[in-house]
């Protein structure tokens, strides 16, 4: 029990250093404030201990003092707030060219799928020094993907995608925990983040997989007959999907939305919700006919047929996450919401 007695988590990501810096700042500031109070308390308790014949001095108060000890803490609080907000903003803004990994949570395991097609259960291999973005959803209840060594955590919700990102700085094996209570085996929903040196990682990622996720998606796209309507020309009954990812889409009801992961997912599972302008409402829903992993694959495929990886991840994450419709309906952004006539 006494062998391994750490008091500080490892720092294994770029964010970890930032978070720890703020934490140490807070420890110092709050430590000083606590020390001040405690010293005063002890000193006053001793110095002004009751002595016979000595009476207390009635002091109403002091507005000047009140203002001072309101203003100073306020400014300190504001400093902490700003620093915390800056760190948070960074933490919630995945860099544009992040490697994407899809995560599906279910009671009580983590299913991970790399874009290259590698699948893992309760483990995630990543290379040192690369930005990795996790696109996550849950099959059942709310879970939370927590990597203490990276100082990141994000709830994983049913019905929509949530996103978190990191850049690992040190190779090693780190804890992965589920951090949102999810039932009987909540404490069993743990795993490992395996950070490897780039060469080692290349070897791993290339060693025997079922092919890239997007290729899998292409196969599903064909198998389910999507290509029948979504042709590569303008003759199809459905919109041409080449180049659609990340671009604005005009909807039938006049709104314009951006075709991000959540929008693509919604189209597959609830096609009527945001029908593209100029097309008939004839697309059938695939809800119940495709699994979460298959949806991920389809999304990956459609992303792969867009010429450039759009730099809108930041915007996606910063936007208000919106409601989901059904099982796998993800959050999507609405550029306006009102349909009031």
């Amino acid at each position, binding site marked *: 029990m006494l062998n391994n007695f750490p008091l500080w988590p490892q720092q294994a990501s770029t964010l970890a250093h930032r978070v720890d810096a703020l934490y140490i700042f807070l420890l110092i500031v709050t430590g000083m404030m606590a020390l001040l109070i405690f010293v005063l308390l002890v000193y006053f308790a001793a110095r002004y201990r009751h002595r016979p014949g000595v009476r207390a001095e009635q002091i109403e108060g002091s507005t000047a003092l009140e203002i001072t000890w309101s203003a100073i803490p306020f400014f300190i609080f504001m400093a902490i707030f700003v620093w915390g907000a800056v760190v948070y903003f960074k933490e919630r803004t995945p860099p544009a060219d992040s490697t994407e990994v899809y995560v599906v949570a279910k009671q009580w395991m983590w299913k991970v799928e790399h874009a290259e097609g590698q699948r893992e259960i309760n483990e995630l291999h990543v290379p040192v020094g690369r930005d990795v973005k996790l696109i996550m959803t849950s099959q059942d209840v709310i879970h939370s993907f927590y990597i203490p060594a990276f100082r990141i955590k994000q709830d994983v919700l049913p019905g929509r995608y949530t996103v978190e990102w990191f850049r690992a700085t040190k190779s090693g094996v780190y804890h992965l925990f589920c951090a949102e209570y999810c039932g009987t085996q909540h404490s069993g929903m743990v795993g490992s983040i395996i950070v490897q040196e780039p060469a080692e990682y290349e070897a791993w990622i290339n060693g025997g997989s079922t092919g890239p996720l997007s290729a899998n998606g292409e196969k599903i796209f064909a198998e389910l007959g999507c290509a029948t309507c979504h042709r590569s020309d303008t003759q199809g009954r459905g919109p041409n999907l080449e180049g659609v990812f990340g671009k604005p889409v005009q909807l039938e009801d006049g709104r314009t939305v951006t075709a991000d992961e959540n929008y693509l997912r919604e189209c597959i599972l609830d096609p*009527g919700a945001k*029908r593209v302008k100029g097309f008939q409402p004839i697309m059938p829903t695939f809800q119940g006919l495709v699994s979460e992993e298959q949806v991920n694959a389809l999304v990956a495929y459609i992303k792969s047929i867009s010429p450039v990886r759009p730099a809108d991840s930041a915007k996606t994450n910063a936007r208000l996450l919106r*409601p989901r*419709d059904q099982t796998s309906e993800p959050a999507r952004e609405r550029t306006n*919401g*009102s349909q009031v006539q």
Partner: protein
Amino acid sequence: MQNNASAGSFTAVHDHHGEAHVAHNPALLHHFAAPQQQRDAASLGMWVFLATEVMFFGGLFCSYLIYRRWYFSDFAAASKTINMYLGATNTGVLICSSLTVVLAVWAAQTARRALLVGMLVITMLLGLVFLGIKGVEYREKFEEHHVPGASFSFDHVEIPGHPGQFANPRHAQIFFTLYFVMTGLHALHMIIGLGIFTWLLIMAWKGRFTPEWHTPVEIGGLYWHFVDIVWIYLFPLLYLIDRH
């Protein structure tokens, strides 16, 4: 007691349980110093209670408004299937009942016992009419399979103004869930109101209310007005989505 002697004075203002008792209204409860205090306490108490009711319904209104914003067309389609005319009639019924309540309070203030009893009776009748119409509406929904749960169905219902587009049944079910919870809770409050008014009626019949003391009528009236106001918000929100 020496400790207290220097720290203030006592004045014998009201000698409780004393022999030389100041005569007071038998309705004055013992822990109050004066009838005015009792009246004020009762009135403030009812207002505070109504504030809690506002928060109670407020949570529901909030949820409703959020979902309505998200699923506007589906909510419009669902709203169209509830009977606006019955709803409007009910609104009129409740507004009239608030008038009769006001008249009842006035009657109590001016010692018009017959009028008081009459107004209380009419108020209650109007309340029953309201509940009756609600019952008719609920039955209609039951028959159309619009009651959320296992037998709910809402297929092929067109979205108003968008021919060929159909409402999402799952979203429509949310509308009906909120509809039944909100109007159901409202109806429950009406029934409680009827219970309160029954008691008021009995007391009024026995001649217990006087111009000096008719607090229960006043605070019962406040409660009734509140229930009325909740409906006045419910009606347009639920019944009048996207009507032309």
